[in-house]
């Protein structure tokens, strides 16, 4: 199969599978789902060598080049995200197959939505068109929020509603920005727009074109910060991620919030690459630093295990924002870029694993509270081990993928003597160690003898075994996030394809102060 077709099929195959899942009789719904889980890695295995060998792949749909038509585009970063969807999404789906059986009545709605979510994510990562991205964002938000509400408990519904309102608002802000950009520059292509944006935005101060372009960029940025739950626009995330069913939480934290970060990269490192973005980069980095500190501290004081993990997502997303200031220095840029890619991937694997592990622990112990985890070391060894391993990657201990990511970012910060960013990176790792330790410590406590007044049944204090289909995907993901540090060459090779202009091998483009 030609690699172009593989690129398009990464979006179209899950769409087709979603339609088939709607159509299929209940007993056969699993077939399109499993088919998609298998098809995505296969398609990526076809696409990856073509991109790594032949460079960025661009596909003009219906043969119409932009601005007339829509381009699909696969470079290293897109490929990285696609792999993450296939791996994290796949592992989470295995766990979800158990918790939401396709043959159940709800499965007839849950699984098509899951597949549409995957299709939307893939569509977003390969799209080169701002409006097409809007439609993909809507598809992702709608299906993700519906999956959060799948449980139907009051808290999940509240969280879903709050998320939905903010997502709608963000989408409209995004669309307003797109409207301004299209009116100014006549194109919707992310990469074609770069020339116009550089010309208009780099022009003399206070021209209308400059004002409109910069406002459009700011509107889109705010919208994406909200989608990416970057501090202080994170307020919707902890409840939404903590209240969703376990496998859904995994996908939300590993993939859905990453869409905002990914698009911020596209916007500021590609579309707006021609502008002097130093101030914006510092601002985004500052927000990221605040997110690292705030998210970690908040994770330290949570009572529910899933909320610890959710706040940890707030913190870890902060690291991804630190890239903006760090790629400013041409010498440090390649390292910072590699670090960002590693962090995207490592966090995607580790966080999906951690949420799955947390869900398995909650299921096994019968409660989501940390003080009810006592004794989990005996009854839930696999889940707890997976949680710990994922935690190793989040803290950034060698040899994990998280270590590599943080090391590369630290090195980039060191090269430009950016002490503040270095301090944030180190502090974040320290705090991550603390909140992961807090969960583990709670689990290794020997359960107290049943208190005389305790209403909880004896079984829940001891824990019950959880099916392997819940704990094993968590373990595999956590192991992958650690092993990634040992086998990172393919990833770095991939990231080197089509890096942002400011990072790329062309020094003439990268020399902005």
């Amino acid at each position, binding site marked *: 199969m030609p690699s172009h077709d593989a690129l398009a099929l990464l979006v179209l195959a899950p769409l087709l599978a979603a339609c088939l899942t709607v159509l299929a009789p209940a007993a056969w719904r699993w077939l399109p789902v499993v088919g998609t889980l298998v098809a995505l890695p296969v398609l990526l295995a076809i696409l990856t060598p073509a991109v790594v060998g032949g460079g960025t792949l661009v596909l003009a749909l219906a043969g119409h080049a932009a601005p007339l038509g829509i381009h699909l585009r696969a470079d290293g970063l897109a490929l990285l995200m696609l792999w993450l969807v296939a791996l994290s999404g796949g592992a989470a789906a295995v766990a979800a197959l158990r918790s939401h059986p396709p043959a159940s009545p709800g499965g007839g709605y849950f699984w098509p939505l899951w597949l549409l979510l995957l299709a939307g994510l893939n569509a977003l990562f390969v799209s080169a068109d701002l409006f097409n991205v809007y439609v993909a964002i809507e598809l992702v938000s709608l299906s993700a929020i519906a999956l959060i509400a799948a449980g139907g408990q009051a808290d999940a519904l509240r969280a879903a509603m709050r998320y939905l309102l903010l997502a709608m608002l963000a989408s409209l802000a995004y669309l307003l920005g797109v*409207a*301004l950009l299209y009116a100014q520059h006549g194109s919707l292509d992310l990469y074609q727009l770069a020339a116009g944006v550089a010309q208009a935005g780099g022009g003399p101060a206070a021209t209308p074109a400059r004002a409109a372009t910069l406002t459009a960029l700011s509107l889109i940025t705010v919208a994406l910060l909200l989608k990416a739950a970057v501090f202080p626009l994170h307020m919707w995330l902890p409840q939404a991620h903590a209240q969703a069913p376990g496998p859904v939480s995994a996908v939300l934290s590993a993939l859905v919030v990453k869409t905002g970060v990914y698009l911020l990269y596209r916007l500021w490192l590609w579309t707006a690459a021609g502008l002097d973005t130093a101030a914006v980069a510092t601002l985004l980095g500052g927000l990221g630093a605040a997110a690292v500190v705030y998210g970690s501290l908040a994770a330290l004081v949570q009572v529910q295990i899933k909320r610890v993990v959710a706040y940890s997502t707030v913190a870890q997303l902060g690291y991804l924002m630190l890239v903006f200031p760090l790629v400013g220095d041409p010498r440090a840029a390649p390292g910072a870029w590699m670090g960002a890619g590693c962090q995207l991937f490592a966090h995607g694997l580790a966080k999906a694993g951690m949420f799955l592990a947390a869900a398995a622990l909650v299921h096994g112990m019968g409660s989501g509270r940390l003080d009810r985890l006592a004794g989990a070391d005996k009854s839930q060894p696999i889940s707890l081990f997976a949680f710990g391993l994922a935690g190793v990657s989040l803290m950034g201990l060698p040899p994990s993928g998280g270590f590599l990511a943080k090391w590369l970012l630290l090195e980039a910060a060191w090269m430009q003597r950016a002490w503040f960013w270095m301090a944030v990176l180190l502090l974040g790792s320290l705090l991550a160690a603390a909140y992961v330790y807090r969960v583990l410590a709670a689990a290794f406590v020997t359960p107290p003898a049943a208190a005389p007044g305790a209403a909880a049944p004896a079984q829940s204090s001891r824990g019950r075994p959880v099916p392997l289909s819940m704990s094993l995907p968590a373990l595999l993901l956590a192991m992958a996030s650690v092993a990634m540090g040992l086998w990172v060459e393919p990833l770095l090779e991939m990231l080197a394809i089509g890096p942002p202009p400011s990072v790329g091998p062309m020094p003439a483009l990268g020399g902005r102060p």
Partner: protein
Amino acid sequence: MSLLMMSGSGAVYLLAAAGIIGIGVYGLLSADHLLRKLLAMNLLGSGVLLLLVTLASRGGTPDPVSHALVLTGLVVTVSVTAFALALLDRLYRETGEIRIDAASDDPPDPADPADAKP
């Protein structure tokens, strides 16, 4: 058609779009009832779409791409609204609530039912 599209009426609708967006933002923030918030969101969306077409048809010729985008936007908006209303319906049936504080930080930890002391 071109007579209708002279810059004067373009400016009028631009003004209208700006006003509608402002009113939408006001409504979104001031509304208490979720149905009202959704209504304001739809107004805001209409304003944005009106702006998209008005700005894109500079020079008097209507821009077919912007029209197609708005058509897509309309369908997306009605889809999201319909889903939101279904969610609201369920929320209301489960909790009796018709309002939500979208801007607040997450609420304090709900008590775990297993913790209820006799």
